[in-house]
């Protein structure tokens, strides 16, 4: 817990699991690309079942302008500076993928009603660091690094922006991008001096929408990169081939001693597992392969499109989504070489298996998700990216996004949609918006890294 004696976060993953239950949740909601001329915003959702406003949006912090396309976010500090009493988990950083702006939001002064602290102008980032298309935010001690997918012209591979704790631009974080062709997500494991990064595509490729043919023209990624974290340069790359088309989310085990990590290859709809063997050599394998499904009206089989993965804080379960199929899955990864499917639920999707959840018509499919520290509540949202939503789920314009809660059983495995919780972003005051990534004020399963 954040406290007077020490810094933010938790001493260990085991301590994090014992933290009090989350009462608030922040999720970004977008109007960019929806036809509604309003700014994107940070929504505060009440997730305290004892509160009269449970399962409702209780605050909306609008960004200063339109057209940001908020997407992912990250904290100014996490458990990586738990022993630094001068730091606290106070600021949430909200990058705008299209505008290039970085919004620094103070969530501590009033956690229910976060306020805008500072905006780093997208043009300044282009001028000082030649970067655009921000995505993943991680902190390392009191410093912050953010992956950007393009240079100032939106061309790959981009690089990493380094901010100090006052949110001043230090410059580029990396020493070299080596032969890396594309950027996207990254995660690091300091005890092994390693960072792993994945590949989506250049902003100019993915921002306008998904042209499937561009995968064959090598405009989308299919490699994972292993970095010397201290030297800040890539040292080894794995070509995943057809098994690893669009390798997106990268997660290491939370256990800082572990070398096991995972990546979801979105288009191949596979989970890639890597680890360091006894000879200290990095190895990889495909451990989950979601089969394409037959769609009644499609001439070709439908891939799942695994756009996100998440590891529970006890490193026992891996969660994944199939955005087009419409299911969320839970795998027991106690043996990371042999995952076992232990839970599956449908919500939306193109197969028509669960068009309505708790009385709300679901446009889109399960897309981003966040798990409570105790591993019992998984909050799932349905929008991927405005232009891609518009291609696959055009009805999301009228219906907006949805947040669903899935009850998970961390002892025996299993998932079930919670019948008392649903947040319908189709009923927002300014019209249907689309919710995406979520974070909890006290930490969650995608925010913390231990040194």
């Amino acid at each position, binding site marked *: 817990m954040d406290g007077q004696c020490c810094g933010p976060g938790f001493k260990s993953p085991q301590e994090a699991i014992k933290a009090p239950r989350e009462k608030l949740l922040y999720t970004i909601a977008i109007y*960019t690309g929806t036809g509604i001329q309003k700014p994107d915003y940070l929504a505060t959702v009440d997730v305290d079942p004892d509160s009269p406003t449970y399962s409702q949006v209780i605050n909306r912090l609008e960004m200063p302008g339109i057209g940001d396309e908020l997407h992912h976010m990250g904290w100014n500090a996490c458990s990586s500076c738990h022993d630094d009493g001068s730091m606290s988990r106070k600021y949430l950083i909200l990058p705008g993928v299209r505008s290039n702006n970085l919004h620094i939001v103070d969530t501590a002064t009033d956690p229910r009603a976060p306020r805008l602290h500072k905006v780093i102008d997208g043009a300044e980032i282009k001028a000082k660091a030649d970067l655009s298309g921000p995505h993943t935010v991680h902190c390392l001690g009191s410093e912050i690094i953010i992956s950007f997918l393009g240079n100032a012209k939106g061309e790959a591979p981009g690089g990493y922006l380094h901010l100090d704790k006052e949110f001043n631009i230090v410059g580029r974080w990396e020493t070299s991008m080596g032969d890396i062709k594309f950027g996207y997500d990254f995660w690091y494991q300091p005890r092994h001096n390693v960072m792993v990064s994945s590949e989506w595509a250049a902003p*100019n490729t993915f921002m306008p929408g998904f*042209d*499937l043919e561009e995968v064959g023209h090598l405009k989308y990624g299919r490699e994972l990169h292993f970095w010397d974290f201290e030297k800040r340069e890539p040292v080894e790359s794995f070509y995943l081939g057809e098994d690893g088309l669009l390798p997106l989310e990268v997660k290491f085990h939370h256990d800082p001693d572990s070398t096991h990590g995972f990546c979801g290859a979105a288009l191949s709809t596979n989970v890639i597992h890597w680890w360091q063997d006894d000879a200290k050599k990095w190895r990889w394998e495909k451990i989950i392969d979601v089969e394409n499904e037959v769609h009644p009206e499609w001439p070709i089989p439908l891939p799942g499109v695994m756009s996100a993965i998440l590891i529970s804080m006890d490193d026992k379960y891996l969660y994944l989504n199939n955005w087009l199929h419409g299911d969320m899955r839970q795998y027991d990864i106690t043996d990371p070489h042999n995952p076992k499917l232990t839970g599956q639920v449908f919500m939306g999707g193109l197969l028509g298996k669960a068009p309505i959840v708790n009385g709300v018509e679901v446009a889109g499919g399960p897309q981003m998700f966040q798990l409570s520290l105790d591993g019992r509540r998984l909050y799932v949202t349905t929008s991927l990216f405005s232009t891609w939503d518009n291609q696959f789920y055009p009805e999301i314009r009228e219906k907006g996004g949805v947040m669903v809660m899935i009850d998970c059983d961390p002892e025996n495995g299993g998932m079930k949609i919670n019948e008392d919780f649903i947040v319908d972003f189709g009923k927002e005051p300014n019209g249907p918006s689309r919710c995406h990534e979520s974070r909890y004020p006290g930490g969650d399963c995608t925010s913390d890294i231990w040194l």
Partner: protein
Amino acid sequence: MIMYTVTIANRDGAQYCVDARRPLLETLREQGVDLPFGCKYGGCITCAAKLKTGAIDQRRQVALNNRQIANGYVILCVARPTSDITLEIGVESHEKLYRNPFLDPLKPHELKADIATPKEG
């Protein structure tokens, strides 16, 4: 200064006089037209509009594939008029902008300019 008239078909035919040297997104927003936008450098498609009549120069755009261009889409944040033009703006004009890529593949000549091959025949 060369000026052209922009008519917005789906805003009751409202007309605006704009500087031919500047991007349409800027000159129309300055005159109070409420337009969507994102990246402001021609890379992200959010500001796409449909050109109904007239001609524009949008050489700086990198977001549209050749099918979208053939369907009349223009990227307002970098496009400049080279004649009087009529536009349809906003998402009402986006009917043909988005397609399901699994159901409606692009032919080789319909890809983005940097990877398209010339149409055969």
